[in-house]
């Protein structure tokens, strides 16, 4: 009877039967946000061991890049972090432009910043919604997606795609925005600002939500640095590191914004960092819209089949999930000799094996959700 549920007890020393149970969290589980598998050994509801298992979404983009031209590689980047594809486009283009010595015109830079920040908002909205579901509140998800749809509409207007944009190209951006788009973007920002306050009343300061997340999944600053975390996961622990400030690109030094920091490194702090980042992104978007001066958006003379001089280049940007880096090696041929991606989700995932132990099954979901991983980027 009941063969699958519990292994027969081997030791009969204690009068109470007690045995640990192994459960597979994923790869088919509603809360793993993709095809992540976590092997959990649980004692009652307590986790005694957690082993994250990745690779279910591996598509070999690093290898594929070695047989494709530089323009074609931008398409591959869309597929890493499919929730926020603009920074992926950007980081590849930054590295390749360094190889080729291209200079992006100012309007192109502003558009890049604009799109990346809009995409950061879209990505954090997705996090906000799905984290609500993880904690058991279904309604914030649809509110977040209502706003996210509008950003995707904006992206569709400008690039024709809603998920894999391929908008940021070598030397600039694919196409300029229209005045109509700018008006629509301003309308969205005006609409979006009060929604952020609404989210706070709905979820951020909800007593049940705070009780579920406030003292759960604590990452001390030193541990966060040791595990190589980046992005809101690192800043939630109070470590002030943001590529946009530490190593500005695309003229981020000209924008006025703050880096929200957490205090204790709890799930709530990581959550709150992201919600606060949305406010900052709104500020950056407004500044970028004001900066849009007429001019070209694409550098002149980008070759159709670029063959950069042999050499190597590294570029990194602050993606929605953290410090997204790319290392490109060229041997003078039409395709990169080697492309390595330093994916923040992969780094952020590794800490789970330490973080989950000692927590309850419900907390596993809360912690997993708070790291905000995208499996497309973990496996690439």
């Amino acid at each position, binding site marked *: 009877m*009941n063969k699958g*549920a519990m292994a027969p007890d081997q030791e009969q020393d204690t009068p109470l039967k007690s045995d640990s149970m192994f459960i597979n969290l994923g790869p088919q589980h509603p809360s793993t946000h993709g095809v992540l598998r976590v092997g959990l050994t649980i004692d009652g509801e307590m986790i005694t061991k957690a082993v994250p298992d990745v690779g279910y979404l591996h598509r070999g983009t690093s290898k594929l890049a070695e047989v494709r031209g530089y323009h074609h590689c931008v398409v591959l980047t869309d597929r890493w972090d499919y929730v926020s594809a603009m920074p992926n486009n950007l980081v590849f283009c930054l590295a390749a432009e360094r190889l080729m010595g291209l200079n992006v015109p100012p309007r192109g830079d502003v558009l890049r910043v604009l799109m990346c920040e809009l995409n950061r908002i879209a990505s954090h909205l997705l996090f906000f919604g799905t984290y609500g579901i993880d904690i058991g*509140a279904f309604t914030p998800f649809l509110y977040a997606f209502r706003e996210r749809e509008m950003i995707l*509409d904006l992206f569709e207007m400008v690039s024709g795609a809603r998920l894999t944009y391929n908008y940021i190209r070598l030397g600039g951006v694919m196409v300029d925005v229209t005045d109509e788009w700018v008006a629509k973007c301003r309308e969205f920002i005006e609409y979006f600002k009060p929604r952020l306050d609404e989210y706070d009343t709905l979820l951020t300061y909800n007593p049940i939500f705070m009780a579920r997340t406030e003292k759960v999944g604590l990452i001390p600053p030193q541990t966060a640095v040791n595990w190589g975390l980046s992005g809101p996961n690192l800043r939630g622990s109070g470590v002030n590191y943001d590529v946009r400030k530490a190593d500005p690109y695309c003229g981020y030094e000209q924008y006025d914004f703050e880096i929200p920091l957490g205090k204790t490194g709890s799930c709530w702090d990581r959550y709150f960092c992201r919600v606060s980042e949305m406010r900052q992104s709104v500020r950056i978007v407004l500044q970028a819209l004001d900066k849009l001066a007429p001019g070209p958006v*694409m550098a002149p003379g980008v070759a159709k089949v670029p063959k950069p001089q042999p050499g190597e280049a590294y570029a990194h940007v602050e993606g929605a999930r953290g410090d997204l880096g790319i290392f490109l090696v060229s041997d003078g041929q039409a395709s990169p000799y080697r492309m390595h991606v330093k994916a923040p989700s992969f780094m952020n995932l590794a800490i789970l094996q330490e973080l989950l132990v000692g927590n309850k099954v419900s907390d596993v979901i809360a912690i997993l959700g708070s790291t905000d991983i995208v499996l497309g980027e973990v496996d690439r």
Partner: protein
Amino acid sequence: MSEPAKEKEAVPAATPANVVPAGAAAAPAAAAGTVAPKPAPKAAAKPLPTPVFNERHGKLILNSRYWPTELWKSPWSLPSYRKGALVLFGLIAGILLTGAAVGELSRWADKLYALIAAFVAARHWPAVTTDAVWDLIKILIVLHVVLINGLWAIWWERKISAHIQSRVGPTYAGGWHGWAQTLLDGVKLLLKEDITPTAADKWVHALAPAIVVAPVIIAFAPVTFGKQLAAANLDMGVLYIFAFAGISVIGVIMAGWASGNKYSLLGGLRASAQLVSYELPRGFSIVPVLMFAGSLNLSTIADAQAGYWHGLPRWFIFYPVIGPLAFVIFLIASVAETNRTPFDIPEAESELVSGFHTEYSGMKWSIFFLAEYGYVLLASFLLATFFLGGGASPFAFDHVIPSWIWMLGKAMLMMFTFLWIRWTFPRLRADQLMDFNWKFLLPWSFANIAFAGLFLLFR
């Protein structure tokens, strides 16, 4: 959308100009996005048209997809919105008028009973036949209250949750606001394959839904639906309801255990801990009500709340401190008993993948839901009876609307509260849920009994 021929022409032509602009001057021209001038038909060399890529998508978004900003500008300016409000008002007025026309249902029941008795007497059948037929009718009515409630509540929950989440919910099935959605869902569930997992204990697995749903139907027997309107007028009605409602937890544990699934097992374990714990504050919270009414009979409890204090109805919820406190504790414990959202840890979708009913499909699965909504209705009627005066009218001047309309209205109001809570709150963790029960609800329900005793002593 523009005509397909024009699109076909515009898109491929636009691509090269957009992707690789030849120089700095080409980009603004591409960005301007003016409408493509129709090339002259006789031109030998076809001129490259101005790209219309952005323009086309701009039109798409502006003309065919609405943003909330456009929709919310002024909903009353939309004719459909005004029409909907009018229909809602008409429905409520229609129900009230129907109620006024029909009058008290107990009057009609007496007439029906007399009719059956006369029929039996005319046929010279034994007199016990009358009561047998009458009991059968009552049983069928109670059974159908639970079944029809399932159809109604699921549709209503879907509509309420949709509107809470700025969606519209089912709109297609049946025509008017998707009224037939649950009906068709039921047909679909009946036709679905009934799967019993290999690892499952076959008999226990099949028996569990029956053990969950049977008590809720039985528990409806003493529930009053209006003045003198109950299937069984039991003197120990309250105890009877709590006793039967407590049986369902066995079915839940059986479902969790017999599924042979680890997630289900965890769900079953959580359910057993939760449901047994929350029985206590639920039972103790209504002790003050019983003290005031001096009876366990639901009709007597409802009748004890008749009358008005200077226009304010003498319902138990309006008793200072004691009433609201008992009401809140009973409401919270009822939500926990029905496994709904702040307390839905046994079936936590995001953690346990539906918990104890993960391995159920088709009709067995839907029976769990029938039971859940049955308990929601039961709790709604109990809340209305204990705290909101049962069938008593909230207005002293009202002598027209019959008690069953008020009872139904109050129960639906409570049911709406249940749905509202579910779609607003996140979920508690198992240990927090236990803390909340044993360290907050239970002590306060005891304190409330003491308050009620003092109140009665010094009244």
